[in-house]
């Protein structure tokens, strides 16, 4: 799960290897079939093959959290995992949280608390927060800070991010149930 194909691995592959595999993902409720190279990360599958660019790439090595999505309800950094390992899984990205025009409670709380500046970390922060609330482990602002520490925000909107999550957590919101 934590093994990341080296960028070079892609370039070294020779023509004789089977280069494409078909997989099925249920993304934001819709069933999608894609043909991808086996070393394609879930992040690249979402961005490059499914056109879901809401999920961001900040480092491609699990160091920033910008690529966080929910796989079968659990938050993961999608750059650190291969798409092929999730054949058949349900994936929720930032594009799948609102219901039409109605924002997800966390999205609403992020606006209310001004929990972002440039917004590049925001999709990852929100997906991570949905996963966090579902885990049910965050009891206090300190817990939230600790358990959200994998999601970097260089603009430093942390205080507002934590406040937004806390508010939703107090509302008893368990996150989006897909």
């Amino acid at each position, binding site marked *: 799960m934590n093994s990341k194909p080296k960028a070079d691995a*892609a370039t070294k592959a020779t023509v004789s290897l089977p280069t494409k595999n078909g997989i099925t993902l249920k993304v934001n409720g819709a069933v999608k079939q894609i043909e991808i190279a086996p070393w394609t990360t879930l992040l690249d599958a979402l961005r490059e093959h499914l056109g879901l660019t809401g999920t961001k790439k900040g480092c491609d090595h699990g160091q920033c959290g910008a690529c966080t999505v929910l796989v079968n309800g659990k938050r993961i950094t999608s750059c650190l995992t291969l798409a092929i390992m999730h054949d058949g899984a349900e994936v929720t990205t930032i594009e799948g949280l609102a219901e039409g025009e109605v924002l997800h409670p966390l999205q609403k709380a992020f606006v209310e608390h*001004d929990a972002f*500046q440039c*917004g*590049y970390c925001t999709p990852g922060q929100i997906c991570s927060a949905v996963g966090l609330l579902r885990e049910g482990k965050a009891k206090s602002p300190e817990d939230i*800070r600790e358990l959200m520490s994998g999601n970097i925000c260089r603009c*430093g909107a*942390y*205080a507002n*991010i934590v406040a937004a999550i806390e508010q939703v957590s107090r509302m008893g919101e368990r996150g989006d149930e897909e």
Partner: protein
Amino acid sequence: MGDRPAGVIGEKVERIGSRERLLGKASFAADIDLPEAVHLVAVRSERPHARIVGIDVSRAQHISECLRVFTAEDVPGRNRVGIIRKDQPLLADDKVRCIGDPVALVAAETLEAAREAAAAIRVEYEDISALFDPEEALRPGAPLVHADGNLLGRRTVKRGNPEAAFKHADVVVERVYTTAHLEHAYLEPDAGLGYMDGSTLVIHASTQNPHYDQKDVAELLGLDEGSVRIIQAATGGGFGSKLDLNVQGFVGLAAYLLNRPARMVYTREEAFLCTPKRHPLTIAYKSAANRDGRLLAADIRVVGDTGAYASYGPAVLNRVALHATGPYELPNLFVESVLAYTNNPTAGAMRGFGVPQIAFAHESQMDLLAAALGMSPLEIRLRNCYRIGSLTASGQELTGSVGIRATLDAVAPQYAAAVRERNGTVSGHIRRGVGIGSMMYGIGNTGQQNPATAHLELTLDGGVVLYSGAADVGQGSSTVLAQIAAAELGLQPEAIRTVIADTLLTTSAGATSASRQTYISGNAVLDAARKLKEVLLTEAADMLKFDRAKVILEHGSVRAVRDADRSVSFAEIARRCHKLGMPLKWQGFFDPDTTPLDLETGQGVPYATYAFATHVAEVSVDTLTGEVRCLRVVAAHDVGKAVNPQGVHGQICGGVAMGIGFALMEEFVPGQTESLKDYHIPSAADMPEVIPIIVEDPEPTGPFGAKGVGEPALVPTAPAILNAIADALGVRIYDLPAGLERVLQAALSARKP
């Protein structure tokens, strides 16, 4: 009166662009889909200083999906870029000056092929001895990074007679401070996309400075400016780094020469390797005071490493010298600040242009002087801080909006409480400390013209469109500018449509740097809004057959003051003006009042206004592990007027986060640091409680009294934390960052008798 509706200036408004960002729909440069785009990868130097003997691209050309390899010879125009000095080749020609210098650019059908081709290119080098130390670079006979010498520049500031004053001083403190290279680590790695639209080259860029990009790309390609259009994509932070060209020149070159769309996205490693850093400075600081704590003199000498290219080095050099005293009167002063080229990574603009570094020194000095005099840190600052009528280091008389004292007063109760609490908390190896840090910051570029323009358009349906070239990189300028226009026009900010940072549709607002957009672009927008308002009032008075002085703007119409029924809508006015053949677009302009600095003495009026701030930091220091926890930061900022208080709070909290990184953890080691794996920036878990306090000492020339806060937010945090660590340990750290080892060492030396 209905003229200034509530809910506009000083009120909470939703950030422009919020919804797209929350829904994952904002288009950052790497998100823009053009399936036929070619992918670009640069071949970068692995040598710090070497002559290029040859570039063998033959193996790359055999890779089937590789389309073309570009080298310096392919650059059709002037192969030099740089905002202040054109000293950086887009693609290295004769030699490379640092690791990461681009030598060739590969265009291929797929990213994989581009990478493979880049790896297949062989560059033959002949090494030249390399320089990694600015002092060495300045020695006679040192190898030359650039043909005209290794000195980037020197700025001196001279006032009074420091030598004589030192002789009469009661206390003199002399110390040397050092700071490290820092990486901006904006979360969005640089990216861009270029394509030809007829004969126009269009580039979607992650940028802070679209109108500068336009000029440099045009000159690179030998095109006229009008043939290049830069559109700022949603930009994931910049903090100064995205003032320089990143990928714009590359995507422009490829799109133009191949006549195909071209995209380039840096990996995090590439962004670390080849984008500018914060200048590491060595600051020798000597300052003196008399018995009652009044500062008498300072002698400050700064040497910094500007790396391979000029970037914003000249601006940093000036700013460091002019801010070297901090917000304190110093009648006798000598400052020299020098930057030298080396073969290290280029250092450029990073939030504060050298002021965070120099503030660390001047604030440490203040505490040292206070300690020598047995005075409290707060008291010595109160005794010396600027007030109306004070003369700055450049001899500029401050005539208004000098809120430094107010920021000190604002934190005083918390400071006293924190000191009491610290005295009551003694627990074995965990020590508590409280520190204070103050600063001033000149808004706008230093001692030179730096105008902004903006336009407002009245549409036939009565809508108002704001056109501004000011790149919003997350700091919230678009929202603030819309608020300013709305306030003047009696509208709500949501009623203003914004067109931002597109060189075809907007005119230049100058760079998003130097905390200048609220003040300078804000004034330009206000100027345009006043012109539009003038027309609205005049036309409405005529249409209503009513006294011009007795009509007001309200919710998109103009009405008689005492008779709400007598009104005409903006739409009616627009249609009438249109019929009369009047243009419906107004230009606003503002250029702050500054004068150039005297070359020898540094005297002059470098900035039209200054922001001020004071932070109080509380820390706990584990004397066994060296771990410092920042527990609370109280941050008082004189912003003149907070147009968008929530945005100001956001800037302050973000500045504190960056300040914590600067103080405690961030260090980019050239040749070693690769990515976020070995460059740690603060996470949520590192954050203290932050208590922002907005102080409003209105700036008479500011829009609604506003100044700025983007960079000031960061400046006082590290000094306050370092002073707090010194308070906790009784031993001071002079080198940043104060990482575990340095703190542990200090703790150990504190234990020695």
